[in-house]
């Protein structure tokens, strides 16, 4: 039996579509809930980010509960930046007990890039150890070897960076994540399909599903900013040039156009198993992207 609805879909060999919502900075979750309602019936699952870019926000776990409450399928993003192994295990127990069946295991961005850069970085674990930890918990014990009363089960994923400028060490880590039990990967933002093709030539030897990360850029300025400031993002010059051709105020439209083109090509050429759309603050435009990429209606 599958551990989650999303795991069932992973086995279905359909082209998969996931997206993400970023929780708010503050206790007013109405906008996030609105985004969840817009997206929940149009994608296979919704990730909820975990203090994205090390900026303190409403928690990922809370956002996932909202996704559940609204009838969607959540993917809990868990980073190792802010919690030690006790807190991580505890959060996973809570998640499972509340029907959250998918976890994306991440190391987490450096504290230095966020808005609380004087905080103590935890990193008691890394992403590979986190994946292993979940497997241990699923076998019925915590990672200290003590029996658990009630064993959680998850569908587990991880991230990978096919556009890294020095790719070999990233592939070593990818191998370790596969060996540690990752079933699916949502990649860092893909801007150059050549790097995705090369990566897939390598990754296709493994029995894992790869969802290409698609970041919707709102302007050339945003692309340059992300290149300089957001870890794990390398926007190609070609994309920046294309965004620069947009008329004033039409940057997002150009960004949507690029995202749609990438998604369509990935799907038509069957480059990987699906896409993960990251609209970074513009979640409301994701349905338009799905429609333009002809992905509407296929994902009830």
């Amino acid at each position, binding site marked *: 039996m599958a551990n989650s609805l999303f795991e069932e879909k992973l086995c279905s060999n359909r082209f998969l579509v996931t997206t993400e919502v970023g929780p708010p900075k503050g206790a007013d979750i109405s906008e996030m809930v609105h985004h969840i309602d817009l997206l929940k019936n149009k994608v296979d699952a919704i990730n909820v980010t975990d203090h994205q870019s090390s900026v303190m926000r409403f928690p990922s776990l809370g956002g996932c509960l909202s996704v559940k409450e609204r009838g969607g399928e959540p993917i809990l993003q868990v980073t190792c930046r802010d919690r030690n192994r006790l807190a991580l295990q505890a959060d996973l127990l809570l998640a499972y007990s509340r029907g959250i069946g998918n976890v994306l295991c991440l190391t987490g961005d*450096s504290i230095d890039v966020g808005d609380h850069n004087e905080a103590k*970085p935890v990193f008691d674990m890394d992403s590979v150890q986190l994946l292993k930890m979940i497997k241990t918990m699923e076998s019925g014990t915590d990672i200290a070897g003590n029996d658990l009363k009630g064993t959680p089960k998850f569908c587990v994923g991880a991230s990978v960076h096919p556009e890294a400028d020095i790719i070999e060490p990233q592939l070593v880590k990818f191998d370790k994540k596969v060996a540690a039990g990752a079933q699916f990967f949502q990649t860092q933002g893909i801007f150059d399909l050549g790097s995705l093709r090369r990566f897939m030539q390598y990754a296709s030897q493994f029995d894992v599903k790869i969802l290409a990360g698609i970041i919707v850029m709102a302007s050339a300025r945003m692309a340059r900013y992300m290149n300089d400031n957001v870890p794990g993002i390398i926007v190609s010059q070609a994309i920046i040039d294309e965004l620069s051709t947009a008329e004033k105020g039409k940057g997002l439209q150009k960004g949507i156009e690029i995202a749609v083109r990438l998604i369509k090509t990935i799907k038509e050429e069957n480059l990987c198993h699906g896409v993960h759309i990251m609209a970074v603050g513009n979640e409301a435009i994701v349905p338009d992207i799905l429609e333009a990429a002809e992905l509407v209606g296929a994902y009830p």
Partner: protein
Amino acid sequence: MIVAQQKPLEEIGRMIAPYERVLVLGCGTCMTVCDAGGEREVSFLHSALRLAEAKSGNGGHTFSEYTLKRQCDPEFLDLLVDKVEDVDAILSLGCGIGVQALAERFPDTPVLPGVNTCFMGMAKEWGIWDERCAACGDCRLEETAGICPITRCTKGILNGPCAGTKNGKCEANKDMDCAWILIYKRLERLGQLEKMRRYYPPRNFRAIPRPKRIVSKPSIGVGEDNG
């Protein structure tokens, strides 16, 4: 060696304000080598404090200066007994260990830290110091080609690079090399990449429960065995 930086003069001025007679005390070991608190820095600081005092018109301090061979060694601290009797406070330019050793040895005298102790490291080039060891108590440099991921990776992670590395640099600081790219390249050069392919479990922080004590007394009559 231990690397430190002298505190700003203003902060030092605030710390010494309540005390009339202050001994500026240097340390002849690490602090001398890293230019933070050796004989030369003691002399400079002494002059700077006098100058600052003259400028502000808030006189009233009497300074003396001295540099010990090592502040962290009780044997050397005994040499200070006479000097400490004549002062109201010690401004130590030793590392945090030196300051605490002084505080233990001279329970009735306030000891003020004149430097910020930063890390254990080495001179990369003249005037540039780089951190190299986190004293984790569980050295794994054999696995990582002699490059410490706990110290040199901002996240201290053990199973390879995060996705934030770009141009071989760290996401937290674009001037710093990504430790895991360095490790990968050196393991490749040594023909030992299989070491990076292994899984490394979470660290054992009990390896060095803080504060740590190491007992290593020579066993009398058993030769060189330090048990």
